């Protein structure tokens, strides 16, 4: 099968990808917007059953407008295209819903693959009834299903409140939101939000709704155990004493559902596979794609935008999408109109503001060492390959002091999910157990195909 030439392949149709594609389309370029989801919009706009204009959040409103418009344009004609690699010669390989390969040869590419939730293992986290906060949100919003009869939401970061408030709005019973970060970290977040009144309002609206629904909101508490025989029946939390000292204050909830999440980690696999350099920056959420000011990665012609360059929310994604598009237009030698310079200045200014929000987000979602140190030995960390905390401690003790060494010793990260779930937390664990700086511990590598694809799809049209 031949490759199809085009100007730009935008990988990921979240806010960043949509914003980029809109600008590139206006510039008259032949753009292909590829996303593995059936609908454009990424994590920000996914899964609403009711038609909505986005409520208070300006990023969501703008994103929805872009998504609606993109559907009418030829660049988003085919949904469900999963990008599985970008190769040395620039070829972009994807696979569609019918298990057919899509082979593009763009002159430039934008990586806008977004982020996923980050999880922390604790005793009982593999019990049925324990789910990601994002999954709980999807159940409520996209399917109209309540995640549990009595739900506890626990972990860190603003997404917990969104998940809890949306469940409450659908008349679900939410017993508590347990936020690991203390008031101090939240104070910094509130300061950063001061310059973004709509987000502030949205946060307040969540809290008011939760209050009205009788949900307890507790900061500085973290879940240590889910108990139950067949499925989760009780959730046990402890108060994190200041400066990590252990505390014996506990709370027990009788709940049949527990939604968890500790902020987001970027989806770096495509960038890694394409050979783009990463940098470690704890203020942006750990390992992220390294870019220059025009958002070009270390690989010429490949740009990055949105959560992959640092966790910072939907508004940052929109701004970066547009900036990356301008970068691509420059790179391709196309001409930009007169007002573009001013627009870019304004976007860069906005980007700095959103980055400072990202910094505050990173602070509230940072996993405290005592949460890692307290994971019991029999707790499963890598669910695909059944690797326990004890296995990891023993392997580290006998000399495995890197992710790749753990992988070889324990098969950690070798299962279906390829370490997407356990990788980030194991990096934190390794840093703690071996006293190495996280910046010296590289994440799992990635090679094409970066996501599962059938052999039949790969073999199609090729003689043996």
């Amino acid at each position: 099968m031949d490759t199809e030439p085009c100007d730009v392949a935008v990988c990921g149709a979240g806010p960043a990808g949509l914003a980029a594609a809109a600008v590139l389309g206006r510039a008259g370029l032949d753009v292909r917007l590829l996303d593995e989801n059936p609908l454009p919009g990424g994590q920000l706009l996914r899964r609403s059953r009711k038609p909505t204009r986005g409520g208070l959040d300006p990023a969501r409103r703008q994103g929805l407008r872009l998504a609606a418009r993109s559907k009418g344009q030829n660049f988003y004609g085919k949904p469900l295209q999963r990008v599985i690699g970008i190769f040395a010669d620039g070829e972009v390989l994807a696979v569609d819903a019918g298990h057919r390969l899509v082979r593009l040869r763009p002159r430039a590419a934008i990586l806008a693959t977004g982020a996923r939730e980050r999880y922390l293992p604790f005793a009982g986290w593999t019990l049925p009834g324990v789910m990601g906060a994002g999954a709980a949100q999807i159940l409520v919003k996209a399917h109209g299903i309540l995640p549990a009869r009595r739900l506890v939401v626990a972990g860190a970061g603003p997404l917990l409140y969104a998940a809890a408030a949306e469940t409450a709005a659908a008349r679900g019973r939410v017993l508590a939101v347990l936020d690991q970060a203390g008031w101090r970290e939240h104070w910094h977040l509130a300061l950063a939000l001061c310059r973004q009144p709509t987000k502030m309002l949205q946060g307040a609206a969540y809290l008011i709704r939760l209050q009205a629904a009788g949900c307890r909101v507790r900061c500085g508490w973290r879940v240590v155990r889910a108990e139950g025989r067949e499925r989760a029946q009780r959730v046990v939390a402890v108060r994190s004493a200041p400066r990590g000292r252990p505390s014996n204050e506990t709370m027990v909830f009788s709940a049949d559902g527990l939604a968890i999440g500790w902020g987001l980690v970027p989806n770096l696999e495509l960038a890694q596979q394409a050979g783009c350099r990463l940098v470690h920056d704890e203020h942006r959420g750990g390992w992220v794609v390294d870019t220059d000011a025009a958002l070009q990665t270390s690989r010429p012609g490949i740009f990055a935008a949105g959560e992959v360059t640092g966790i910072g929310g939907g508004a940052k994604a929109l701004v970066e999408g547009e900036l990356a598009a301008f970068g691509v237009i420059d790179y391709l030698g196309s001409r930009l109109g007169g007002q573009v310079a001013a627009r870019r200045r304004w976007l860069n200014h906005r980007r700095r503001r959103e980055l400072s929000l990202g910094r505050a987000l990173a602070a509230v979602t940072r996993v405290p060492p005592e949460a890692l140190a307290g994971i019991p030995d029999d707790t499963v960390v890598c669910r695909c390959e059944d690797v326990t905390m004890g296995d990891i401690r023993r392997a580290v003790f006998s000399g495995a002091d890197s992710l790749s060494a753990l992988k070889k010793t324990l098969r950690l990260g070798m299962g279906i999910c390829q370490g997407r779930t356990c990788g980030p937390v194991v990096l934190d664990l390794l840093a703690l157990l071996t006293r190495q700086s996280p910046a010296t511990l590289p994440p799992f590598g990635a090679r094409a195909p970066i996501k599962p694809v059938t052999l039949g799809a790969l073999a199609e049209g090729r003689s043996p």
Partner: protein
Amino acid sequence: MKRAPATADAVVIGCGVIGASVAFHLALAGLRPVVCERADLAAGSSGACDGLVFLQSKKPGLHLHLALESQRRLEALRAMVPLDYEYLRCGGLVAIGDEAEHEAMRRYVAAQRDSGLDVRLVNGPEARRLEPALSEAVIAAAYSPLDAQINPMRLTLALAAGARQRGARIMPRTAVTGFECQAGAICAVATTRGTIRTRTVVLATGADTPRLAALLGLDPPIRPRRGQLLVTAPQRQILRHCLISARYIAVKYDPALAARSGQSVSMEQTARGNLLLGSTREFAGYDRNTTVDGIQAIAAACTHIVPVLKQVQVIRAFAGLRPWTPDGLPLLGPVPAVPGLVLAAGHEGDGIALSAVTGALIAELIVNGRPRIDLNDFDPMRFSAPASAEAAANGVSP
């Protein structure tokens, strides 16, 4: 950062399967070697390969003899190391796709039987009785009950752990950066964690060997020959045997053919149920990336032979660099120009299978001055002797 010891009985460079095996056997003989590994254990080709101990793919003669000896040792070693390496004598099939291959295999199998291998040809229906997943495209097969498979990463870790138990020191993330010589002989090895004084150095650096040898002004004719591999999600048992295509044997020893003919196939199902599907044979420098062409070629060739694989998902792909040599045989033994230097590299696609015997022979060479099996055919200097003109005339340079 831990410093390297000031002195050592011997320094082994590289902790792939070969370095680990050499260290294990040296420690077994009472020496206390130090192993310097640039990255992690099994970071090179030994962690990016299949685990076939496939006797049928070895050249009849000394090569096969060595492989048989190595297999016996791999079976015995299980009781001497602290980690299970999933050794399974599953038997192996060489799938034959057309009459020309069939004819070549008839001669090949006869020569192997003469070398003492238990192997026979079976027709298509018989092959499918042995391995029901095979398609009608397989017209015949060669079968040996001796072929086995192993987890190569765990084998490397197991040998290293066994060496450590017996007094070897294994140093990951310690790169060798230079050598010191006195009157032409090696007297010390410079590493990123300090200098180690020693009079015996074993180069077990696989495809990286030319880079290290260059520091001593040597250029052994080892070149990286890339192999891409696909890994599927775990499956219920699909394959009972390990399997290669007849083309695999041909391509292995003839790079010119590798360029002309279609993709050759190797398949095994691991203890966890994942299938390993390989593999390409390409000269692409030190590039360990996978390519569209390589991935597609493997998928097409494997689904042709085992059609049920079409529905199976690939969850990962990777590439390793086989240490290729012009005649397909490793370079084992001393280098007279640099006293103290011993080469144990260049095993191409056979390093896992030959690991045990390689380690044992190199240890015997270092400890007793001469190994039990004559290493003449593996002499590292064989290509610089006039005889190499013949290899050159065969046109088999990369």
